[in-house]
Each structure stands twice: as structure tokens, then as C-alpha cells.
């Protein structure tokens, strides 16, 4: 298993190197040490049980998110309970004990819970990835500029960051998420291609654009809340890297500021950021679910995981224990996958902790 993972990672590195060499023939020669380091990382990662478990969970999450809405046996927009009242909150039916019923039971509207989860995982996954991928670059950029430029620029960016950090994050997100849906709805109404594109990403039907607007407002609100933490950390790291001789040398060579930032400073601070992003994918998944739980995300019929739990919470625990337990465990597992992966990456990306593995291999 561990060797298989190492082989797979090593093959992908080879593939990437071959690709770069096609574009620029000398690339692998010039970057030989970097490629060697990647191999070491791949090796260290394949020896970490936590990393393998996390990677497996993340892989399953991604696969579920991609194919979930396609393979879901029941559509989320049909309410079987209208035809048959007894379908409401059916308990799970796992084969050896019982047969014929829905595997994980049904929700308030008699919909198959398994299908709802397949839709919900896509929504949760997309929203967490987008929050992190959009929020982090803003934070990195502002942190880089503030740390490198110093002076008034630094002071004003950091005051802005302080301001956002002084605001309790969840409250700020709730506030933004509550004022935006109307506007986003107008935008979506005005441009059908955008609407179709976004609903395809989330695995929803285009006619639910009202709910889509709520979902996107959660997403935008979280991006607004997300960047300050990164800005502060990046600035701190830049301050310490900025004084090092290689930055002086780059300055003396007459390189432009953007080139120094991008080529010389960013690579030196990127590892902790990657680790933090991995952890934040867990946090973002949970935070987006929490906003939906509070009623700020999409409403009926969209099966967002947090919203499913909040609906089931009204009948907790008599009828809906299974919904809270199952959907809750799904959220727990998704977040756990990212957290385990992040924990392993922290060890793998840090040369100090990786070195012990490096020596073990050579010896």
C-alpha cells in the first residue's frame, strides 16, 4: 500500500518533469535539486499513516463530490411524502438486518438520505474549495505587500486586517450573508449563462437560482472573512525573510519588486501556507455548514448538509436521530480527512522533520 502510493506520486512527478522538459528542454537539469526534494516529500508522505488515511478520505470526498449528483438514485426536488405520508423520517435499513427500505433512511420530505448526502457533499466540497482558493490569494497578496513595503502601506493594511479580525468571524459572515442574497439573485437573474454555470458546479438545477444566490452569498461572505488571518501570517513571515542575504542580493541585481516577491520570497513562505490551507478546507467546510445550519444558506429543496441537520434538529431526537447522526458523521469525516492530510503535510513539507526520513532512506 505504502509503496504503491510512493510509486504513484513518483510517477506523477516524472510526468510533470517530462511535461516541463517538453516546454523548456533544460528545465529538469536546472531544477534537479528541487525534483529530488519532491521525491523525498513523496517518500516521507507515503510513510505517514495519518497522511495516507487523510489522503484516502480526501480522495473519496473528491470522487463523491464529482460523481455524487450524477449517481444519486433519487432527485432532491421530488418530495415522496406528498404521495405517502409514512415515508417521513424512515430509519436506516442496512441489509443484513432489514431489506427493501432506503439504506440510510429518509429525511423530512421522505427523500432518500443517501441521495441527499451525495448532492450535499458536492455543495460542501465546492464551497469549501472556493472559499479557500479565493480567500487565500487575497490574504497572501496583502500580506506580501504589507511585509515587504513596510511603512504607511504596512500600517494601513494591518489596520484593515485588525479591523476584520476584531469582528467575530461568524457574526461578520452572518451579516454579509444576510444582506447579499437579494443582489446576487438580481445578478443571476440578469445573466442566464452565469446561472447555468454556477448551478452546474454545485450540482443543482438552474431554476433554483434563488437558493443558489443564498449559497453564493455564504461563499462570498466567507471569502471576505477568510483573508485577514493569512494576511497577518504572511506579513510576519515576510518580515523575517526580507532581511536575509539572498533578498539583498536580488535587490542589488536590480530585480523588480514583483519579481523579488514572486520568485524569492513567496517560495520561502509557501509551505506553511499550504499546510494552513489544508486545515482551512476543514474549517471552511464546517463553517459553511454552520451558516446554513443557522438558516443563512440555501433553503428547500437544496440538500445542503448543514441545512439538513438544522431541519432534523427540530424533531431531535425522537424521529430524526439518524439524520443528525449520519449527516453529522459525513461532515465529520470530510473535515477529518483534510485535518489528517494537513497534519501529515506539515511534517512532510518541513525540512527539519523530513530529514529523519531522508537519512533513514539513504542509510
Amino acid at each position: 500500500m505504502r509503496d504503491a502510493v510512493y510509486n504513484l506520486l513518483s510517477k506523477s512527478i516524472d510526468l510533470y518533469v517530462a511535461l516541463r522538459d517538453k516546454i523548456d528542454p533544460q528545465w529538469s537539469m536546472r531544477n534537479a535539486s528541487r525534483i529530488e526534494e519532491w521525491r523525498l516529500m513523496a517518500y516521507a508522505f507515503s510513510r505517514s499513516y495519518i497522511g495516507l488515511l487523510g489522503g484516502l478520505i480526501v480522495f473519496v470526498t473528491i470522487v463523491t463530490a464529482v460523481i455524487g449528483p450524477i449517481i444519486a438514485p433519487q432527485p432532491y426536488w421530488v418530495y415522496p411524502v406528498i404521495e405517502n405520508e409514512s415515508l417521513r423520517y424512515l430509519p436506516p435499513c442496512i441489509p443484513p438486518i432489514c431489506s427493501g427500505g432506503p439504506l440510510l433512511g429518509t429525511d423530512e420530505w421522505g427523500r432518500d438520505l443517501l441521495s441527499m448526502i451525495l448532492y450535499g457533499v458536492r455543495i460542501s466540497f465546492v464551497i469549501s474549495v472556493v472559499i479557500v482558493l479565493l480567500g487565500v490569494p487575497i490574504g497572501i497578496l496583502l500580506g506580501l505587500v504589507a511585509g515587504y513595503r513596510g511603512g504607511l502601506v504596512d500600517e494601513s493594511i494591518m489596520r484593515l486586517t485588525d479591523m476584520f479580525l476584531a469582528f467575530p468571524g461568524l457574526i461578520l459572515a452572518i451579516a454579509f450573508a444576510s444582506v447579499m442574497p437579494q443582489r446576487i439573485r438580481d445578478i443571476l437573474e440578469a445573466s442566464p449563462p452565469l446561472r447555468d454555470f454556477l448551478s452546474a458546479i454545485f450540482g443543482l438545477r438552474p431554476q433554483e437560482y434563488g437558493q443558489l444566490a443564498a449559497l453564493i452569498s455564504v461563499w462570498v461572505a466567507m471569502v471576505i472573512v477568510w483573508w485577514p488571518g493569512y494576511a497577518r501570517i504572511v506579513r510576519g513571515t515576510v518580515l523575517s525573510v526580507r532581511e536575509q542575504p539572498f533578498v539583498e542580493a536580488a535587490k542589488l541585481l536590480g530585480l523588480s519588486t514583483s519579481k523579488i516577491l514572486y520568485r524569492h520570497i513567496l517560495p520561502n513562505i509557501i509551505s506553511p501556507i499550504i499546510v494552513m490551507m489544508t486545515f482551512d478546507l476543514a474549517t471552511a467546510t464546517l463553517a459553511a455548514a454552520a451558516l446554513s445550519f443557522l438558516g443563512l444558506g440555501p433553503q428547500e429543496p437544496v440538500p445542503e448538509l448543514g441545512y439538513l441537520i438544522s431541519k432534523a434538529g427540530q424533531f431531535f431526537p425522537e424521529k430524526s436521530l439518524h439524520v443528525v447522526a449520519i449527516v453529522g458523521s459525513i461532515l465529520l469525516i470530510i473535515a477529518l480527512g483534510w485535518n489528517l492530510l494537513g497534519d501529515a503535510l506539515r511534517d512532510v513539507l518541513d525540512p527539519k522533520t523530513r530529514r529523519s526520513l531522508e537519512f533513514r532512506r539513504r542509510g
Partner: protein
Amino acid sequence: MGFGSFIARRIITFIPTIIGVLFLTYIIAYAVPTDPVRAWVSEKLTDPKLIERIREEYKFNAPWYEQFAFFVTSIFTGSLRDPVRHTNVFDEIKTRFPVTVELALVSFIFLVAISIPLGILAALYKDSWIDFLVRILAFFGSSMPSFVLYYFMILIFFSWLRATYLAGIPMISLQCMDKLNNIATTYPVIGGVIASIGYVPLFGGAMCGEWDVVSETLKRLYVPALSLALLNGGFIARIVRNSFLDALGSEYILFAKARGLRRFNVWRHALKNTMVPVTTILGLSFGGLLSGAVIAETVFNIPGIGRYMYESIMRLNFPALIASVLLVALIYVIINLIVDILYAYIDPRIRY
């Protein structure tokens, strides 16, 4: 730069932060596409004259900077009124914030009681089952959706054990409240401080000898407090563990061992240095608890400041939102400052 001027500088940089927070809140409120006044008045009372009067009172017809100035001045004169509940916003905060303080304190006690012993044990017995347990707890706490944990805590402690209750919150008696108000008016500064501590039912009950208020409060709050502590305890225990291990591996510990100190005394030396990062993280999490646990307060039905802010947003009640956000931001900034000062006090190498 000396210590005094460091504090002075920090306090000066507060001011733009606080003004910025106020302005940000105001922008959010202003960005609401619907008319907030319509949301405030109930359907029966939609007399156009009344709406016009409320509009006038909250300066909705004036340009935005006058409106903003109105909010700021009425916050600082304490005359801001809650348009939904028709009470003074500060009276509302005065009854709700103490509840959040209680919850934060009880939760903080659990947090310290869980994380510090576990962290130290995990460091002393590295790679043992207790280290593993701390690791699991940390992963669990950072991956668990908080509301799911709350539901299961309710299931265990309320539905099964019947060991807590979920309605209302104990308050101190009116006589006790009068007593506290008396103290506040007779002794200007110290009395005010004592009275505001007493407004927290947990302490007020103890001051007036109303012990049933204290015990009922604890019975009401220990489940949410424990849940909050479980969510953060593992993470903080890991920090305690790692920094204790760092300290144990340092040269002065080697020296202390070489001098033949007893094991316990060696640990005491290491513990002192462990406390530097731990104080920071504990201080910040206490600040986080004080700014209101919105989800916990919603699920456990606790009328604290977090839920007040949440409800204010949902009802477009932004006079209340602006006032409570200002309070929370002030607390955050002050706690940050206290943490920084403690940091410099514990570790004299750090001076700004």
C-alpha cells in the same frame, strides 16, 4: 522602546480599529437592499405617519454621514434604542452579556482543566496511549461540526440523564439587583466595578447569598460549556504538549538535570517556559468565548450576546447590532492587549 510607550502605542492603534469596526458594521447595515423600518414595525402598525416618525428618529432621511454620526453619538451617550424590542439597547446588552460571560467562564474552567493536565501528561509520556488520546481529541475537536456535538450532548445529558435543562436562565432576585445598584451609586468607581461583576448571576448570587441561583446557573450551563471546551481542548492540549516538549529538550533543563535536581523540580522549570505560548492561546480563546458562541447559544437556547447579534441581523435590527458588535470588538482588542502585556511580563526577553 520602553514598556510604557509600548502600551501607549497599542492603545492609540485601538482607535482606528474600533472606528473601522463601527464603520464596517454601518456599511453592512446600509447595504441592506430592503427598508429596515418596514421590517421593524409589525404589519398592524404600518401607519405611514409612524413609519415616517421612526425614519426621522433614526435619521434615515439624512445623508449617510449624518446617519453614521447619529449612531456613533447615540452609542456613546447611551441613548440608542432597540427599534424591535422598544428598549434601550444597553439595557438589553446588560441582561444578555452577563450570560455570555458566565458561559465563557464556566467553559474556560473546563478548557483549562482539560487541556493543561492532558497536554503535560502527553508530553511526559510521549507516544503512549495518553499522547494518542490527546491527538485523537485534537483531531476530533477540529473536525466535529459544533452543532452536531451540541445535539448529542443534549441527547445524553438532557434526554437520557435528565441532568440539565434547556429553558430560561436563572437571574438574581430584584432585592439583590437593588443592592448592587445601591453599591454602584454610593461608591463611584469601585462600586461600579463590583456591581458590574454582580450583574453576572453566577457572582451576584454568591454576593447576595442566593446560592440556589449559583447552582441552577451551573446546572444550566455546564453542558454547553463542556461542549465548547471539548471542541477546543484537544487543540490547546497539543500546544501545551509541544511547547512542554520543546522546553524539556532545552539546555537549561539538561543543566538542571546535571545539577541533580529532583524530577519534579526539573519539570517546574520547564513548565514556566511552557506557559508563554499557552497563555497567548488561552487568552485568545477566552476572548473568542466572550464574543459569544452563536451556534451554542442557538442550539442550547441561551439568551447571550452572540444570539442577540444573530437575531439582530436576521431582523435587520442594526442599532442593536452596531452596539453589540462595538462591545465585542472592544473586548477582543482589550483581551489582545492583555495577552500582549502578559506575554511581555512572563517572558522578559520579549520587549517591543
